[in-house]
């Protein structure tokens, strides 16, 4: 990014800002917990986006001031939140009718692994405490476009963009775009291969190839 001075790769904010550029005017979007939540801070001016929260809010507002805190208004991450003049509250069944019925344009999610065929793993590691899938499996099954934000490699340096996922799947062939701290991969259809479309500042193709197990087009 232009403001970057000698730093290699993208920060989490920069990854979120890049994902926000995929928003289109009039979109309804669902942002996952963690870095994806930051995407809401970077929606470009003039692009009107309605944020949906799967616990039953269509039209999420900003976090409340201390005075505005209402325990009956929380987002899917269980954080206190506010409503807007467009907000509607719905039951969980209606909320997931929006999601599973294909009425949500875009979802941004985190991941443990993404495979070159679009498979996504982000809900469990065998042998460890399993917290459960929450709404992630519904989102990837029903939302029209899925963008994944994740670090390019794991903490021990192993590739997270892989030939096949090694962890149990959240969804098969569901990822449309992958944004990491090093690069962006996109594909035109769920039948096709991923293509490297952007490199982060200071990152070379050689470095991306060395840190990626998946095959992709350049």
């Amino acid at each position, binding site marked *: 990014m232009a403001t970057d001075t000698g730093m290699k790769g993208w920060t989490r904010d920069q990854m979120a800002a890049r994902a926000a550029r995929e928003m289109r005017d009039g979109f309804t979007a669902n942002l996952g917990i963690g870095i994806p939540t930051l995407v809401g801070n970077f929606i470009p001016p003039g692009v009107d986006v309605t944020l949906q929260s799967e616990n039953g809010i269509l039209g999420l507002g900003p976090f409340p001031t201390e005075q505005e805190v209402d325990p*009956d*208004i929380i987002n899917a991450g*269980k954080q206190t939140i506010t409503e807007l003049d467009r907000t509607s509250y719905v039951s969980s069944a209606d*909320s997931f009718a929006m999601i599973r019925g294909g009425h949500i344009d875009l979802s941004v999610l985190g991941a443990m692994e993404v495979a070159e065929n679009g498979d996504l793993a982000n809900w469990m590691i065998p042998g460890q405490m399993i*917290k459960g*899938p929450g709404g992630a499996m519904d989102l990837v*099954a029903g939302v029209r476009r899925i963008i994944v934000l994740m670090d390019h490699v794991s903490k021990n340096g192993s590739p997270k963009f892989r030939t096949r996922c090694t962890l149990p*799947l959240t*969804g098969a062939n569901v990822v449309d775009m992958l944004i990491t701290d090093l690069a962006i991969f996109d594909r035109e259809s769920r039948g096709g291969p991923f293509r490297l479309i952007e490199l982060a500042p200071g990152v070379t193709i050689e470095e991306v190839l060395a840190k990626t197990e998946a095959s992709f087009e350049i």
Partner: protein
Amino acid sequence: MAEKLRANADIALEGLLFDGMTIAAGGFGLCGIPETLIQAVLKSGVRDLTLVSNNAGVDDFGLGLLLAEKRVRRMVASYVGENKEFERQFLANELEVEFNPQGTLAERMRAGGAGIPAFYTRTGVGTMIAEGKEVRRFGDSDYVMETGIVADLALVKAWKADPYGNLVYRKSARNFNPMVATCGQVTVAEAEMLVPAGSLDPDGIHTPAVFVQRFIQATSNEKRIERRTTRAEAA
């Protein structure tokens, strides 16, 4: 009019509880949970419960109270990451857990309450969730069959109840409560406010009285916040 209002939670649950039963409870996280009724279930001593609820509460609140006293044999939930005692029992194999995708869980209760024994959904196809279940092709996609849930007892938290048992929820505290209300053989509701007949807009009732067999004035309305997140003034 058949009187549905009961004097308190203990009386409302009289004759409904038995060991090994299945209880569905409304709420998302700690938002919109039937606090008063959960405490009464705990007090009753009933055990070997199967609980159906999106979450399992936290260690000292909500359904976590039942877990802490080892009253739960099996949990059907979508996300349980906020409870250390749950984690301990789960890893020690003291607790059976069935994970459902959140939308699947909501739909299973909606279907159970609507007399629909099963339905097909794309959610979970190609994952562990679909293992052992029928997968069927409709058009050009695969769908997994999921079954409806009918619970022995359903517990819901409402904002307002009129004397007939018509319910209105408040903001995102609605969440699973409307589906839970439909899926009980018997449904007991607790309401923050009891309001006079005719004071609810008939067009704005979320759970019509037919789904509610008994209700009480809620005496626990703590509404604990799990993640209090605020911004500075003037954003």
